[in-house]
């Protein structure tokens, strides 16, 4: 083994002047970086800084335009993920690539060399997952698993290849705090075994907690390296963004106005075996309010969004009211025409179509609400490209969306920048009711505070805002009222000032203040 002869602190991986051009746009521009054996190395940077692009080059998903990659002292060309795996590099992408209908073991087998029996893979995966504190049932179907468990499959899949370096791209943005703690324990175990971890995250507290060194990217260039333990979250944020991150200010919040959005005993049965049914949900959002719905992912948030948005209308008209008008059976565009705006959780393939340009993605959400501005030609329904492009430009500027061209496909934007566009798309029309599911996942600290501020400002200007979020920090920053969703039921609504994290934690467990006896969870 070549590694043994080398001095202990010679880098495992060194990157020299690595550059990636998309057309003339440099997503990564002469990056130098080294990763030592046995360290957890953080890669920080605002949205669009080039983090994902860099690690995709290290894993052979993107080809570098120029520069070199040195692995254990030898220059290598990594032209495919299987080459990277052979070298000893494993990667966990932010967006999972799992087949829902297959079992855990079958999914793992797909990425392994052929010829290994499924039972052996199942056994190895199960042993390994227990050894690293990531328990997994190899015979479970992926569709039945939570996001955290799915991520474990990806991690175990990477670990089975016995990698020396593991790359994690924003792994915790989809995890609950408990799941994240588990993950950190695993990472520390890996580190103790002498493996290295390259860790991308926008959550600076956790970077401080687990990382040994950090490299900061900005506009595709390395702008600094530091020991995160010697910094504070705000000094780290300053290094990333180049200026201080503004605090969300909720001051001067207006008094409650009329009820703009209401659900009365809303119930909806689950559409698929893996969905959650909504049970007797009652809520009211007044003008000037931000109601935040907290809860662990997979407790009916998506289903609640579907029902309130009208993507899946419900059977009765009068269980959902927008501005006092019953809309339960109306579709999403009818609700938009009444002044409502919607931001779903999933960016790709739900809020936006990756292959279409930003201006087309603007038409996607606003073809009816902005009919007069965006469509011409009467019944022909001609799309007025110039008007749409101008509006898209206006939104990009207002939200500071960084992109590599005038009107690029949505899929080429970095995750956080696309999110800014999708939120801006709704804010731009000043909706009287805005419903947002996970407004800032994958968004950097600066942009997250901008989005949150925009939500608060929208409420101040007299709109009703409903925010569904997993992130308690976010909830306390924006909310005037808070409720908790658990197994498809909604708790009472409390003023934000009356709630503490502990109280929310209790509510998440399903113990509602008023009923006293918590119903037993039904068995799966």
């Amino acid at each position: 083994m070549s590694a043994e002869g080398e001095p202990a602190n010679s880098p495992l991986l060194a990157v020299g002047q690595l550059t990636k051009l998309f057309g003339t746009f440099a997503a990564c521009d002469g990056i130098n970086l080294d990763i030592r054996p046995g360290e957890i190395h953080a890669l920080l940077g605002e949205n669009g800084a080039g983090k994902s692009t860099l690690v995709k080059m290290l894993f052979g998903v993107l080809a570098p335009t120029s520069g070199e990659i040195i692995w254990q002292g030898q220059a290598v060309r990594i032209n495919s993920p299987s080459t990277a795996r052979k070298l000893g590099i494993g990667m966990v992408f932010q967006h999972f690539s799992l087949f829902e209908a297959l079992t855990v073991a079958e999914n793992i087998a797909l990425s392994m060399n052929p010829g290994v029996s499924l039972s052996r893979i199942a056994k190895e995966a199960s042993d390994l997952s227990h050894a690293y504190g990531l328990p997994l049932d190899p015979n479970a179907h992926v569709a039945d698993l939570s996001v955290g468990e799915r991520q474990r499959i990806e991690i175990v899949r990477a670990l089975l290849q016995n990698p020396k370096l593991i790359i994690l791209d924003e792994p915790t943005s989809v995890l609950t705090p408990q799941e994240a703690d588990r993950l950190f324990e695993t990472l520390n175990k890996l580190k103790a075994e002498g493996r290295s971890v390259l860790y991308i995250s926008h959550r600076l507290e956790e970077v401080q907690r687990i990382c040994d060194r950090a490299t900061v990217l900005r506009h595709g260039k390395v702008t600094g390296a530091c020991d995160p333990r010697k910094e504070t979250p705000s000094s780290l944020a300053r290094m990333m963004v180049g200026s201080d991150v503004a605090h969300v200010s909720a001051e001067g919040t207006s008094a409650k106005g009329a009820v703009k959005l209401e659900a009365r005993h809303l119930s909806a049965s689950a559409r698929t075996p893996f969905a959650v049914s909504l049970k007797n949900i009652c809520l009211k959002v007044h003008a000037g309010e931000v109601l935040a719905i907290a809860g662990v992912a997979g407790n009916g948030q998506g289903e609640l969004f579907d029902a309130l948005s009208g993507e899946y209308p419900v059977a009765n008209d009068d269980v959902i009211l927008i501005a006092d008008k019953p809309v339960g059976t109306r579709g999403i565009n009818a609700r938009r025409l009444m002044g409502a705006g919607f931001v779903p959780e999933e960016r790709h393939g739900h809020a936006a179509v990756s292959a279409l340009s930003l201006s087309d993605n603007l038409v996607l959400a606003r073809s009816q609400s902005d009919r007069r501005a965006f469509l011409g030609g009467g019944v022909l329904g001609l799309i007025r490209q110039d008007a749409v492009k101008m509006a898209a430009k206006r939104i990009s500027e207002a939200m500071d969306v960084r992109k590599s061209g005038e009107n690029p496909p949505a899929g080429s934007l970095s995750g956080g920048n696309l999110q800014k566009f999708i939120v801006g798309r709704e804010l731009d029309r000043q909706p009287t009711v805005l419903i947002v599911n996970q407004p800032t996942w994958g968004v950097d600290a600066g942009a997250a505070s901008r989005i949150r501020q925009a939500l608060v400002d929208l409420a101040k200007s007299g709109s009703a805002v409903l925010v569904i979020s997993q992130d308690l920090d976010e909830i306390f920053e924006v909310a005037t009222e808070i409720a908790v969703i658990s197994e498809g039921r909604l708790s009472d609504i409390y003023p934000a000032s009356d709630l503490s994290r502990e109280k929310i934690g209790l509510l998440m467990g399903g113990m509602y203040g008023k009923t006293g006896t918590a119903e037993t969870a039904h068995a799966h």
Partner: protein
Amino acid sequence: MRIELERRPDVSKLFSILSPFIALGLTLVFGGIMFMLLGKDPLSALYSFFIEPLTEVWSLHELAIKAAPLILIAVGLSVCYRSNNWNIGAEGQFIMGAIAGSILPVVFYEWQSPLVLPLMMLLGMMGGALFAAIPAFLKAHLNTNEILTSLMLVYVAQLFLDWLVRGAWRNPGGMNFPETRTFDATAILPEMIASGRAHWGFGFAILAAILIWFMMRYTLKGFEITVLGQSERAGRFAGFSSRKMIWFSMLLSGALAGLAGIAEVSGAIQQLRPVISPGYGFTAIIVAFLGRLNPLGIVVAGLVLALTYLGGEAVQVSLQISDKPIRVFQGLLLFFVLSCDTLIHYKIRMMWFDLTDTTADGVR
């Protein structure tokens, strides 16, 4: 060993454009080899297959006649395929359109009026659309697979036509041949220009291609088709209904296939026979993909595929071989088009059995 397709990091723009031409080139090479194996001189065979039909005015007219149904059908199919509805049964819709349009000249043959032709065309479109409504209904309401249902209905249509021309609609003065009576002059689609046989079907095809191209490019309907084809969920977010899109795309492509059917019968054959199509409905699938599902590309692709029909007939006469080479050529062309497109996006990797090879060496 296992063969894997691996997505390429970057897609070459140049090769995306060249791909149909490379596919054509490869088809020619392998077609030449096929002629060689048949013991014919490949160059002269290819010449009479691909070049000769283009050298005379009358055969250019034949080209337009054969291209018309291909283009009409393929343009409709492109809307289906772009919206993720896989109508494979255009052949059946073509036949049902031809039958429905022929009701006037066969059953009501005594009625002669300038209204007959337009009504025939309308009936043809309705016949094709109604026949496509069957798989549309099954998919929209029972969630069946439209590939299977639309394909199986082709055989129903073929047998129904066969039964009609041998039974109820057989020409009473036709000495028991399985044919209907020949159409009256008022029921025959006129020629487009004086120099030859090409009828207005070709005009319809070009018109349909331009209209659909316009719809896809400039209108909200076209946008809806694109979005629903890319992601049903995003379409739902936009307020588009994928169920309505099933109906729209299937009825549209059915109507265009039906129009192609009645135009072919009224313009070129002028009566119904047991077989009225040399597989136009299936060949149109190749045309749609060779034209990149773009209506203007489909016009070009339709002319190319029409040439394989003509060339096939030409070599049958000049080289004394069967009509099978046409099929082989079309198959080769589809195969190469699809594989060129695939190889632009993916590269092939051979995975040998190397179970434990995780060491650093051995990698370039």
